[in-house]
């Protein structure tokens, strides 16, 4: 008998057997554990955050996912910029050709981009009011575009201040400066000058003083600072952005960052300020609370001498005579529009992942902050770390403790989405940085030519120069914001 004939015969028998056996038609349920939906997630997590996230994803797949018929596949770009570019690449494609995952971990500006293409699910459909009320209000507020909740908080961060206590101690002792100066920007700026002078005096070489402080995000500095000082740069009403560059406010920002920077009191050398601390370029920095894991435990000077250091985490400084305010950041997650099954499955994961225990475990492992009100409790977090045997460096624990405290007591600002908000943010980030980099070079040149630091700085830091920057920034921002 030929193979084909057997096949035909079997086919007939099977269909007969099937008819007699009564083939079951699949039931109409939202999800079927036997035919699970696959949810793809793109994140930018790396290192510990990625490992912890992957572990939790596996746990979800084995438990709630398996029960409900959801399989989550997570992939990470390794960095937020890469992820944004990946999303941008998808959005450039025709709608039908797009291959966006069901869940994207992203910032509001990316969410806003996808939202404008009608690509996001309003999470109000999948969360009850009661469920939503359990989350930190500020975190949720950031996720709204109009009435639609599109960006869901899963892990947050804020900015904290890290101090190389080991190196600070000698300076502090010799110059009689206390750590209290780190509570205000003005205090830091003043002390940085002292530190520069103190280090400069250590060598014969003139003008080789060291920077004391550095910042990772100038955009945050300017946004939080302007808000704190009473006039936020971006105000959004009905999705329309208004850009206000208040002269007094902006001058304060300028004086407390640009001026110390070009003076060499502040510095920015490596990729991140934590790298600078690792290389001994600076001894304190403001950076994201999530960067705590990258804060070094030793300093290697000039690629040669290595010594251990102790790092202390402190709350974010404020401007004198203002209320404490800090940024709350960190990507949330968005649900892209697909079909009911996938959307529902994805929402299940979001709920599960932000439940107290899971969320705290992830926070502890990744130095992110949990998103529910009752999760922002350091003693609980510490308990979870111990009971789950989470490898969590002391520095990260410290950062979490400070961050949680900060989140519970500070006013939290977040960036508002509007068209090109991310470009606007980049402009904000870059305009001052590029200028200060360039101007610092000028100062160095002037110093090399023998002019004193004060003169050199005064030569460059003119009112005219400031106004020029302000005007350019204003026009650039307005250009990009389409005002």
């Amino acid at each position: 008998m030929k193979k084909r004939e057997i096949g035909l015969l079997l086919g007939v028998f099977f269909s007969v057997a099937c008819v007699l056996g009564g083939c079951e038609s699949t039931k109409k349920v939202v999800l079927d554990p036997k035919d699970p939906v696959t949810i793809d997630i793109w994140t930018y997590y790396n290192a510990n955050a990625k490992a912890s996230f992957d572990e939790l994803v596996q746990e979800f797949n084995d438990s709630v996912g398996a029960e409900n018929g959801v399989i989550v596949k997570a992939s990470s770009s390794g960095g937020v910029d890469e992820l944004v570019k990946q999303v941008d690449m998808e959005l450039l494609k025709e709608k039908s050709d797009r291959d966006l995952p069901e869940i994207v971990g992203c910032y509001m500006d990316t969410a806003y981009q996808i939202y404008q293409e009608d690509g996001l699910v309003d999470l109000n459909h999948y969360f009850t009011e009661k469920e939503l009320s359990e989350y930190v209000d500020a975190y949720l507020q950031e996720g709204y575009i109009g009435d639609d909740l599109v960006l869901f908080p899963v892990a947050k961060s804020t900015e904290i201040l890290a101090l190389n206590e080991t190196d600070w101690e000698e300076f502090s002792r010799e110059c009689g400066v206390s750590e209290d100066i780190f509570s205000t920007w003005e205090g830091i700026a003043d002390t940085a000058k002292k530190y520069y002078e103190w280090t400069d005096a250590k060598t014969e070489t003139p003008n080789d003083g060291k920077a004391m402080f550095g910042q990772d995000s100038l955009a945050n500095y300017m946004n939080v600072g302007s808000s704190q000082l009473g006039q936020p740069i971006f105000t959004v009403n009905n999705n329309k952005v208004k850009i206000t560059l208040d002269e007094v406010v902006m001058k304060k920002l300028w004086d407390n960052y640009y001026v110390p920077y070009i003076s060499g009191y502040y510095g920015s050398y490596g990729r991140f300020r934590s790298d600078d601390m690792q290389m001994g370029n600076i001894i304190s920095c403001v950076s994201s609370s999530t960067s705590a894991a990258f804060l070094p435990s030793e300093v290697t000077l000039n690629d040669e001498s290595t010594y251990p250091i102790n790092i202390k985490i402190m709350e974010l400084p404020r401007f004198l005579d203002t209320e404490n305010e800090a940024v709350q950041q960190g990507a949330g997650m968005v649900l892209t529009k697909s079909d009911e099954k996938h959307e529902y499955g994805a929402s299940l994961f979001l709920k599960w992942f932000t439940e107290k225990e899971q969320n705290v475990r992830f926070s502890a492992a990744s130095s992110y902050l949990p998103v529910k009100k009752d999760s922002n409790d350091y003693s609980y977090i510490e308990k979870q770390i111990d009971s789950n045997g989470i490898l969590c460096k002391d520095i990260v624990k410290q950062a979490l403790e400070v961050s949680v405290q900060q989140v519970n007591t500070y006013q939290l600002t977040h960036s508002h989405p509007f068209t090109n908000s991310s470009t606007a943010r980049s402009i904000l980030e870059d305009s001052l940085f590029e200028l200060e980099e360039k101007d610092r070079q000028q100062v160095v040149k002037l110093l090399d030519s023998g002019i004193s630091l004060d003169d050199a700085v005064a030569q460059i830091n003119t009112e005219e120069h400031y106004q020029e920057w302000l005007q350019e920034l204003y026009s650039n921002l307005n250009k990009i914001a389409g005002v």
Partner: protein
Amino acid sequence: MIQKKKKTVSINRKLVTIMLTVVLAQGILFLLIIFFSGQMKLFSDNSFSLLEDNVYSHAANLSGFMKDAASNMEHYGDALSASIEAGLKEENKTAEDLASDRNLSYELICSVYDELVTLQRRSKTTGVFLALTDGSEKNLSEFSGIYLRDYDPDINLSESDLIMEIGSGQIAMEHSLSLDVNWKANYDLTGDEEKNRFLTVPLAAVRENPGVAMEKLGYWSEPFSLYEGEDPIITYSIPLIGEDGESYGVIGLEISQEYLEKYFSENITGTQMAESYTLAWSREGKQISYIPNILLEGILPGNYEEGFELNKEDSKKSVVPLDDGDYYVCHKRLNLYDRSSPYYDRDWSLLGFSRYSILYADFNAIARSTVIAVLVSMLSSILLIHLLSSRLNRPIQQMVGRIRKKEDNQLMQLETTYINELDELGQAIVDMNNHICENADREKKKLEYERDYDILTHLLNHRAFKERVAALLREDTGKLGAMVMWDLDNLKSVNDNYGHDFGDYYIRSAAKILGSLNLKGGIVGHISGDEFLAYIPDCKSRKSFLALMEDIKKKLNSTVLYLADDKVMNIRASAGIAWYPKDAVEYEELKKKADFAMYDTKNSYKGFYKEFNNQIYERDAMLVEGSVELNRIIDEQDVTFAFQPIVDVHTADIFAYEALMRPHSEQLSTPMELMRVARVQSKLFEIEKLTVNGVIRACVEQREALGNCKIFMNSIPNQLYRAKKGSYLLKHQDVLKNVVLEIIESEQADFTCMERKRSWANKFGAGIALDDYGSGYNSESTLLYIAPQYIKIDMEIIQGISEDSGRQKLVGNLISYAKLQKMKIVAEGVENEEDLRFLVQAGIDYIQGFYLAMPDKEILPLSQESRKKLLEIQEEIGSERDRQQ
């Protein structure tokens, strides 16, 4: 020869059997063809080759990826070493200066930085590294160099995604590289040797394999972590060899295990037969040992994590069953190393583990499905066969049912089945049935007539007459009815004298006249030869019916029959009438009474008719009806005997017992009645026999109680029962000799018989007594001719004798006579003391009577009380006599 009866089978079963056999045979044949044609094996072979395909293609993929990286390395390695050597030359330095001159190595690294990054980008690996040494790695704790890592090599957006693990901070700042938290400025060779093997092994290889080109010394490291707590990585490193043949550094690529797993799982498409994949070291010797090192997918089955061995023969096969029998492993060498490589014998392999149950899943599933399909199709065929055959069978069954249900002699109609053969069969049956019915009907009528009618007279026979009249009587109309029985008077003589033909003629002629009663609403039957019965249900009145009877009598009497000898005669019949409901309401009773009236007629005036007379009937009824009871008593010997003592006056002891018959019958409860019927029915002999046998038997049973006492029994004078030889009677002659036969005085005696009786009695020594003396007639003559040993004086003479001088004289005479003749006298019925006293005084021999003893069914001794009475009387008489004397 007895032929064994062949079992009958229904069409249904026969059909089903045949068709089932066919279906079963087909099913079995089908399965045999499927399973033995070798086609099924293809399914398991397919599984094996699919597993092989899986593993081979993944192996090719991985091997391609790793070898691509390696060949990139070799390509860029040459250029890199050329650049470094050129740089050294330019500075006029040698590799030996690297250890002391940090700046030199910084310069060199900066000069090849871009090439290193390009190498990493091209090879799409997770890291690239360069380590520089002075060639004498001894005592060196640090190598200068650079180690860059890219966590996601698939996305190469900018330098900014590179992280510096090891290298100058200066370079990091220049290229805006972020530092790993564990960042080191230089390679630290202290501590764990394992983590340094990616550098030390290739450097050692240069010394061990002098003259071998650097690309031939490429080394794939085992998985290790660069820094504690980091994810494991594997590296491919080749030594940098200077012109002097000394090594001065190592360049290499890193592939993180995670990335390798990701790369592997992304390339998995289609059905996977294996449930787990792992990379493994393979070492070839007598056996091939596999040591899994990187688990790529799934979980390794139990015992194989630590490694296992395959013998040479097995290892030639791509898919090998493992020892535990549950698993198969498919192994494919990645061929990462050339034959010329020093590491050739420790190549890497990809292993795919698959369960036996999965490899054979298709085979099993198809085998199961095939069997199920065959079974299901067979079952459905069987069902279908059953349905069809029962559908075919149903009309047959219906036809059979209809035929069965049909009542006898009923015409039949069958429904059309629309099956030609059946319908024809049915029609044939219907035709045959109808034909039979017609014949049967005719025959039935004939039979019915013959059954109910007398062929001779064409009147109802007895049975049919009874049936119909009884049915009529059951209606209980209450109207006056008459049952008449006729008996032809002279039939016997007609038959005897003229033959039966004339007899019949006589009967027919009478029947014709009697049959006319049919017209009056009567039912007439010919009962037997000369008997006719008629029942007229509604007579209106006795008078009118008697007139009718008179009319019939006249008609009978006026009918002239011509006999053979030219004689003529008239019909003469006697008739009896019984009235319904006066005389009886039931058939048998009516008939009996009509019969009785008819006999009454016949006994008085032949040729007339009489109505039933109850007085006459009751008088004769006992005689008539008693005969049955008598026969029963005789047949069943249903009598017992009571014994009444006869006391010797002189000794005051029992001399004899009289056996008194007690018939067990309500109807004939006394011996008198029994005798009367027996006499009428001529059963006296039977009674004699019954008496003799019964008494003897009773005596034998109570032999001891009887002792030497005589036994008196009543005997019928003209009947002699002589027991046959060997009979029960003759066996008990000892009892017989005590017997005294009481001859009833009242019976007419037959001399001859009496003589025989006497001689029979003499023969056994039995005595003869004359019973009831003085009650009958010719007592004296009887006494003379019987000449008995005993005389029993009738109780009529004895009772009250003490007060009757006449009887006293009579008895006195008799006593005198008896003494003379040496006869003994028994006084019967002595019931008071006075009579007894007189009798004793008169000199009587024996006393029988209630005063001394009652009859009893058992032979009892004389009570002390009676004895005392008698003795007292004797004493009194004695003393009186003494006084007189």
